[in-house]
């Protein structure tokens, strides 16, 4: 237990904020993509960045990872990683409403990632009276170890992170992907402040 850990109430509050954001984001996505988006209860955990590489190790088999940074007011910032397995990415162009020859496979992955990330985070931000800006999404090189190398580089200056794992499933397109939000330690303290303010209302 350290200063970066969330109390039970804080965890519960953040979980509920994320649930509501997921619900609204999924509704928007379902309308845009014209299909039902299945929601699972998201998981939130505080972890040390050294163990982060390990917990994400099973994702090494992922065929593609797209990363996108986000930042808002009150020092709330982090990075979203969208992790795809091989079988997930066959019909993304179709899902997005493009003809397959209109955009490359890489572009499809980047596009859907950006849509999932920004739709969710916009709704999340509005719930805490915030507003997000985003970096351009980037496809990580497909070489082996690219995830751990990327994580090492990214978590270079922090020891601790808040990890939120959200799973998206679009059954009609057998599409499935994991969104992992990583929030660095200074931003955790800022999020805790925001959560405490919300909890004070109860």
């Amino acid at each position, binding site marked *: 237990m350290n200063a970066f850990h969330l109390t039970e*109430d804080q965890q*519960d509050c953040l979980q509920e904020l994320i649930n509501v954001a997921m*619900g609204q984001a999924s509704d928007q996505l379902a309308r845009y993509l014209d299909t039902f988006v299945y929601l699972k*209860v998201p998981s939130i955990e505080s972890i040390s960045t050294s163990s982060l590489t390990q917990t994400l190790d099973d994702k090494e088999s992922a065929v593609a990872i797209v990363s996108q940074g986000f930042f808002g007011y009150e020092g709330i910032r982090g990075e979203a990683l969208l992790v795809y397995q091989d079988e997930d990415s066959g019909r993304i162009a179709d899902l997005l409403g493009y003809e397959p020859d209109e955009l490359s496979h890489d572009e499809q992955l980047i596009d859907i990632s950006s849509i999932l990330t920004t739709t969710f985070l916009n709704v999340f931000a509005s719930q805490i009276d915030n507003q997000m800006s985003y970096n351009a999404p980037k496809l990580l090189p497909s070489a082996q170890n690219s995830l751990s190398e990327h994580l090492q580089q990214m978590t270079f200056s922090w020891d601790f992170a808040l990890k939120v794992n959200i799973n998206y499933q679009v059954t009609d397109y057998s599409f499935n992907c994991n969104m992992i939000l990583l929030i660095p330690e200074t931003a955790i303290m800022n999020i805790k402040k925001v959560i405490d303010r919300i909890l004070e209302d109860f």
Partner: protein
Amino acid sequence: MSPAVLICDDSNMARKQVLRSLPESWHDNLQTATNGVEALTILRASNIDILFLDLTMPGIDGVGVLQGIQKLNIECSVFVISADIQPEMQSKVLALGAKAFLQKPIKAERLTQELQQHGLL
């Protein structure tokens, strides 16, 4: 005479949000459940008039509870309060006998309005 109320949600905060949207006088005759199994146990043991039900929960979820209520022939007015607001989900729970579908986070005025509409307030 206030109705017997059950609030079922895995989030403590969400339960509190519902609680403070209800008339003060209802608080005495009110129980809470944090998952579908707990909710069904309470529903079978006591006569609940009104159930406020979340959908996305670990284990038996809200849809499971609605199916249980049908199967067990339990008489009670169910108001679904959920973050999952996709039209498919709304029509699904209404078909399973829910009185109304309310979007999270719940607003007191909206809940009051809905209860009045169903003659419960």
